[in-house]
């Protein structure tokens, strides 16, 4: 009887152990598969061009003022004398490979007369009326030289290649800075109020309830709210400001609760000694309490950055999905896609899984670095205390 009991116990224990290992293996496997999928699909698309170029190719007609119009012996190397080095690219067009510092191409103007700086990588697709496809360099030099002899300003059609994520990176950065500029002070001061000033009572209960509610509301509801209030009622249109305002509400619970934890962890003695030495409560808070809570506040900010980088539902209907670097806070030119919203749009509307995964690789690396950073800060400062 006793032996049987023991046997069934051993069997049960083994089953339990197997289940534990299986479940853990499954959890880790999903991560490996997801990361593997994203990297396998996305890594081939990542290179310097992908990280630094604009998203959309942009074509501009420009006028170049040619300076050395009298020099006619340069027909073979005329372009070089302008301070530019060119080469035929894969499509047969002429790409600028190198520009001297004082190249006249850098002082070109577009048709409206505004300055347009030709940059390395730009492709010259037309000289005057001649298409440059499959043109030889000699012919091109001749074209330039002829134009110069006639004393004309040279009309070029220049295409700046796209396919890069620069605008999304910049927009993400803008939105991070804007949201934090709004949410961080409010969140930190709220935490200060909740831990240092508020007495137990109705106000405290109401505020804490509100924060818990905010933390639970799904981001699509924030998106609805932001669209109704900021985009439509306050007439900000799809803009980074509308997006940042929506996000800053969404970030408040994270910032407040993380900062509160940090404030609560500061020993009471610190405050008492400061107050005992005659400092006011305000001085104590700003000179003793907040500096000591700095690591916690930093962690709160890093967590918020992670949240902003990953957010999509609250941003699509407030900041829009246009891949451009916003040039204002509100209005027509302020709509901007972050990395994540662009990734969504690529998947859903264009079905472009490869580019989407390339962006996903960038995002995952970013999140991973943020994770490491917050852990490093926590470890470093908790050991010290």
């Amino acid at each position: 009887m006793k032996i049987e009991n023991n046997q069934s116990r051993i069997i049960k224990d083994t089953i339990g152990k197997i289940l534990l290992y299986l479940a853990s293996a499954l959890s880790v496997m999903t991560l490996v598969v997801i990361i593997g999928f994203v990297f396998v699909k996305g890594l081939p698309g990542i290179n310097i061009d992908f990280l630094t170029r604009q998203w959309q190719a942009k074509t501009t007609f420009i006028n170049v003022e040619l300076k050395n119009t009298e020099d006619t012996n340069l027909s073979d190397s005329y372009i070089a004398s302008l301070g530019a080095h060119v080469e035929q690219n894969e499509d047969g067009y002429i790409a600028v490979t190198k520009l001297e510092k004082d190249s006249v191409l850098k002082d070109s103007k577009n048709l409206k007369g505004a300055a347009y700086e030709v940059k390395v990588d730009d492709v010259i697709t037309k000289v005057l009326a001649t298409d440059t496809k499959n043109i030889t360099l000699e012919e091109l030099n001749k074209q330039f030289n002829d134009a110069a002899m006639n004393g004309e300003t040279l009309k070029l059609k220049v295409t700046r290649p796209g396919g890069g994520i620069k605008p999304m990176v910049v927009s993400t950065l803008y939105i991070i800075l804007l949201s934090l500029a709004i949410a961080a002070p409010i969140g930190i001061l709220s935490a200060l109020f909740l831990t240092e000033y508020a007495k137990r009572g109705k106000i405290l209960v109401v505020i804490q309830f509100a924060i818990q509610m905010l933390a639970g509301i799904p981001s699509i509801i924030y998106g609805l709210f932001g669209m109704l209030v900021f985009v439509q009622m306050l007439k900000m249109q799809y803009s980074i400001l509308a997006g940042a305002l929506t996000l800053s509400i969404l970030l408040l619970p994270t910032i407040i609760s993380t900062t509160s934890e940090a404030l609560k962890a500061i020993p009471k003695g610190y405050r008492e000694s400061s107050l005992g030495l005659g400092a006011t409560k305000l001085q104590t808070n700003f000179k003793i309490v907040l500096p000591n809570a700095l690591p916690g506040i930093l962690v709160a900010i890093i967590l918020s950055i992670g949240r902003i980088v990953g957010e999509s539902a609250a941003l699509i209907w407030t900041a829009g999905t246009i891949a451009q670097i916003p040039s204002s806070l509100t209005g027509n030119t302020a709509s901007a896609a972050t990395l994540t919203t662009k990734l969504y749009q690529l998947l859903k509307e264009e079905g472009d899984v490869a580019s989407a995964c390339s962006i996903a690789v960038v995002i995952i690396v970013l999140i991973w670095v943020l994770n490491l950073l917050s852990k490093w800060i926590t470890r470093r400062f908790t050991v010290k205390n």
Partner: protein
Amino acid sequence: MKTTKIREKIIETLFLICALISVISVVAIIAFVFSKGLKPFFGENAYSFTDFITGVHWNPENNQYGVFYMIAGSVFATAGAILVGVPIGLLTAVFIAEVAPKSIVNIIKPAIELLAGIPSVIYGAFGMGIILPIIQKISPQPQGQSLLAVICVLTIMILPTIITLSESALRAVPNSYSEASLGLGASKMQTIFCSVVPAAKSGILSATVLGIGRAIGETMAVMMIAGNAIGGIPTSIWDKVRPLTVNISMEMGYASGRHQEMLFATGVVLFVFIMFVNITVMRITRKAGEKN
């Protein structure tokens, strides 16, 4: 002396105002979403609320707005994710907290944390790239978008929440519990499943409820794989679904007038669900707090 006192008072009020911004935000969100979302059911030309809440067809062009099948979709998807995700997550948490050697914990934990930080659209990409093709192969229906796909992705998405919260609940159980159990001759597994896990019950429960909240509110990942049916309660896991969140996000971009108000009404339904979940979480945590 007096001026400092006044200054302190002013600053304190300023802090209070900052703290009240959270309250104002919640009130504003509720007020705006509800006022816009409840508008179509009142006044002239009102849409019947019963038709809205029990209808199983969504066809804005024919003035047909039924959300019952979306509620069903949301509930089924969430229930499925919880049924699969909680056992796996809990077992993983037990493994991390009680069984695994430190070297393995040091690998698994960062992995879980990374999983928690990955944005939902990337889970959507994963669903589109891996899960949909697999389901398409084995499904009796022509498309891969289905309730099953949603359940798979949501399960993966709630795992980190369940694992981290359950793990900290398990770690909070005093050592004396397992020592007493082991001392009475129970095996390691018996100790874990009969003594430690039951003691961490309330933490695990609140992890589950938070998982429900996350699953029901998830939008972007689900939108890419749900199939977004225009009507009909899902009857099998191969059917297309259209959870509440998806309905809002799908049509928000171009909706106007009554149609837009109905999307806000969908938001109200979602909000009521979430509120219910939130209040349950608060109750559980408060109860646990009282016990200690």
